[in-house]
């Protein structure tokens, strides 16, 4: 087990949080639609320290989203266990329970369209009865302001915002609950390169200012290497761990890092593994990598 205090040299990020240690042990998930067993995950294991930023890459149908749904408490697992800070989060027979300690940001965006930005952001605080309305509002405004003066859009409805802005609000809606894990399910998938790059910078800043355990699911290997401390490549279905790459690039990072020899070496190492799985998935008739 890794030491909680390890900080890779050259990283100027805020200290690791005390909680948010994730241990996924030998998790298998079998779906049983109409009797045809589909093994979505098979014997998948990974360990994360509190404050780790892990990206999970793999072809469609490799069980990335299944894993995320189990972590978030939306789905059950068939065998294996998941621990969060030493406590069982999911095991066979336990009832999946979602919680504000692990909020998901979805790829299609899931802001509540009928609530204003501020109502969306404060929804968790009010539902968990953490504070009164006025206090929640103040805290919501504070979080919006801190995230690049978003206070000005507090009373807008999501439909009035660009997709990048919507995603920023969603991340704030998750972070305001001070979650132990931030689960990002291909949050920037539908964005063009320019906006995607801006969102990457934004996310890295959040990570540097207020470090959290982050699990970031993506199709995009470059994105994964640019953002994460570790990139896990999964095999095509049944999904299991294929490659676990430590990304030892200094933080804070910017776009220039993508031209560095270290980055290119990592990319070469990962690319062949990802290609191999994408090819297998393609030959099986699954959807291709985006």
């Amino acid at each position, binding site marked *: 087990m890794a030491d909680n205090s390890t900080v890779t040299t050259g990283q100027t990020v805020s200290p690791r949080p005390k909680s948010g240690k994730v241990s996924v042990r030998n998790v298998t998930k079998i779906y049983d639609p109409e009797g045809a067993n589909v093994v979505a995950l098979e014997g998948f294991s990974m360990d994360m320290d509190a404050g780790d930023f892990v990206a999970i890459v793999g072809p469609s149908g490799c069980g990335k989203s299944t894993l995320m749904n189990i972590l*978030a*408490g*939306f789905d059950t697992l068939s065998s294996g266990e998941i621990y969060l800070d030493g406590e069982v989060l999911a095991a066979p027979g336990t009832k999946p329970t*979602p*919680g*504000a300690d*692990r*909020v*998901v940001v*979805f790829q*299609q965006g*899931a802001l*509540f*369209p*009928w*609530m*204003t930005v501020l109502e969306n952001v404060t*929804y*968790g605080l009010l*539902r*968990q*009865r953490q504070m009164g309305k006025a206090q929640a509002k103040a805290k919501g405004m504070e979080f919006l302001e801190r995230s690049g003066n978003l206070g*000005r*859009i507090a*009373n*807008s*409805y*999501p*439909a*009035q*915002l*660009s997709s*990048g*802005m919507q995603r920023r609000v969603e991340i704030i*809606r998750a972070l305001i*609950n001070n979650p132990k894990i931030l689960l990002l399910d291909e949050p920037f998938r539908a964005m063009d390169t320019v*906006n995607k790059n801006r969102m990457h910078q934004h996310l890295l800043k959040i990570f540097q200012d207020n470090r959290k355990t982050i699990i970031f699911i993506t199709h995009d290997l470059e994105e994964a290497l640019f953002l994460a401390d570790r990139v896990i490549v999964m095999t095509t279905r049944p999904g299991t761990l294929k490659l676990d790459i430590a990304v030892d690039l200094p933080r804070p990072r910017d776009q220039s890092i993508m031209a560095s020899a270290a980055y290119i070496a990592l990319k070469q190492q990962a690319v062949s593994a990802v290609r191999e799985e994408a090819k297998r998935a393609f030959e099986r008739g699954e959807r291709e990598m985006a």
Partner: protein
Amino acid sequence: MSDRTAAGAEVKASNSPRSRRNSRWSISKINWRGLFSIACFFLAWGGAVAFELPGFAEIPGPWEVLLTFVNDFLFTKKYWQSWGVSFKRVIWGFVLAQILGIPLGLFLGTSRLFNGLVFPVFEIMRPIPPLAWVPLSILFWPTNEASIIFITFIGAFFIITINIYDGVRSIKQEHIWLARSLGASRVRIFRRIMLPAVVPTIAVGMTLGIAVTWNVVIAAEMIASDSGLGRLTWEGYVSSTPTVVVVGMISIGIAGYLSTLIVDNVERRMMPWRKS
């Protein structure tokens, strides 16, 4: 969509949607194209009658109709009572259909047990045209008025229910998951997530429902009533006064249009989050 900021991509509309109040009536806002199209319609109609195009021999021209309207209807109590009676039936049928259809649609969409028990019957009843209910309705209800309201209700009820049911089924799973993650109880999720999520389909049901209720009420009045705009039109036919028929038809058109305007307005208020 109106005011894009220079930055463009970031904020599409800067003004708060809740504080939007613009003056409705001004000269520049008059729909000139619409007025022109209506004028052209009356001209074409008048022309067709004046030149006795095939089929138009018995049809009155717009001027004749207008004269009949001003002389025999505009200032009579009976004419405006017809409006009142038809509107009352539409409103009753429409509102009852909402009151019963919305909860039924919600239950069909949320409870698998209820759905299994009720939906098959619902699906057999749904294709029956409202007018096919006329005979039974007359036998069943003690008054004519009640049976007409019932038939009007039937017209809107199935459409509204099936729309809500569809709406419930298309609620984004992510919204419910997220609400649970954020700590919302079942009751809260129903009230603050599921209900607003089906509001757009309630609106669709209203738009379709109001159109159908007017269709149905007019036909029902022709068959089974001695009052209302439908009856007025029918009497024009029976008494061989086609000008009356046309007065009735135009009145129905205007009544339906007014109802649509009202419903549209209500819908806009129901969904302040929708882009204008």
